[in-house]
């Protein structure tokens, strides 16, 4: 796409990003941030958290502090990796990849359904001190990404990409 004339139809085919997608992406960023906050909290109180690791019913830290630290490190590393992948997914939702949108919706839906099962069956209390913020974020993400505007945007962006691929 070097000629100025040929760039125009592609611009027209590329749809404008609706507010629901921008909002959904911001909420996904907020969800990642809250995860990063959890990691920072654990690192800040490393000794307290290593002391809580229990394997086969016994506390690990008094017996083998290095092993306890390693377990916690692996857990945090794994969670960090999930967050980085989620961040990548957020970027793909922003650029209008439909599968990324559906995957992000699925994560939110599973999380909501698990929370709801816990709430309805086990009588878990969902308040500001427990999981209200993360449940709220999940529901808002699902609302934003399942909206008609977000759906049309993802479909239109996909069509624009395949049209661009064909014209290349």
């Amino acid at each position: 796409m070097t000629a100025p004339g040929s760039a125009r139809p592609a611009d027209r085919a590329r749809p404008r990003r609706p507010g629901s997608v921008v909002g959904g992406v911001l909420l996904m960023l907020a969800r990642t941030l809250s995860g990063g906050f959890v990691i920072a909290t654990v690192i800040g109180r490393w000794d307290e958290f290593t002391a809580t690791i229990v394997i086969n019913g016994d506390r690990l830290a008094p017996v083998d502090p290095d092993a306890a630290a390693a377990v916690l490190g692996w857990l945090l590393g794994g969670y960090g990796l999930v967050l980085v992948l989620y961040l990548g997914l957020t970027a793909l939702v922003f650029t209008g990849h439909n599968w990324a949108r559906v995957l992000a919706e699925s994560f939110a839906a599973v999380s909501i359904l698990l929370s709801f099962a816990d709430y309805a069956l086990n009588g878990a209390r969902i308040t500001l001190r427990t999981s209200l913020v993360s449940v709220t974020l999940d529901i808002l993400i699902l609302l934003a990404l399942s909206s008609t505007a977000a759906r049309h945007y993802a479909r239109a962006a996909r069509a624009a990409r395949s049209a661009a691929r064909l014209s290349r």
Partner: protein
Amino acid sequence: MSDTAQAPSARRRVSVGAALDGFFFVLAGLSSVWLAVLLASESLGLGWGLLWFAVLFWALLAYLVLPRLHRILTRLYVPNYFIGRTRTSDGLLGDPVNLAVNGTPEQVHAALAAAGWTRADDVTIASSLRIITSTVRRRSYRQAPVSPLLLFDRIQDFAYQQEVADNPARRHHVRFWRCPEGWMLPGGHRVDWVAAATFDRAVGLSLFTLQITHKIDEHTDVERDHVVASIRQAQPQARVVLIRDFATGYHSRNGGGDTIQTDGDLPVIDLRALPASGRAAAPASLPGAAGSVVELTGLS
């Protein structure tokens, strides 16, 4: 749907995607109701935070929960063919279609500009913020955006307005939709554009979604006649075909719950005789002399 023209494998993939979309759409609606319940029960435990939570609760209800529920329900029971009414983005019935126009886009734009109408800005974050601040501070915003209404499954192609007394809360406005190729009004009248003209009289709460919106004047005929008169004054050669009693039965409410009163006449403004770029002369078969009003009445 255009999907049906694709290969069978692609069609199946699309329909799985559509089923997933539908599932998430409804699940999001239901979980937003649950979120409203959670917020309401949480707010009971808060003392002075209650007011803050009440605002949050209203925002959630008005802008997320009720629109989503309306969308799910109206998709089930509101027909999607032309019934003389536009629809809001939530699927509710919106302002009535009370005007039609024949002519090219250039002729429509030229006629409205000459008649003292200002084209409305598109709805963007910047223009939305500006209409809020100018309404609160009572500042003039002559190109204020109008909310999207849908007809033929499309948002209006463009909208024109006239602000009243430099107050963005009160304005004349009319939205235009280009009719699909070969489409005819009920009764077999072929027109290029249909339009919905209403007068915004104040800012208030929508009856159905509790959102902040413009309230329209219930006498939509006054606004319709104002549009026709302003164009005829500016363009004396414009012809008008008045279809009498086109929509006599359509007294109802619009999407914000405002009542609508109408005599049901549908004026078709014919601008094809107007000079416009790209079209030299008017077709010879236009009804009536230049500037005339032709009345079409039913059998009686």
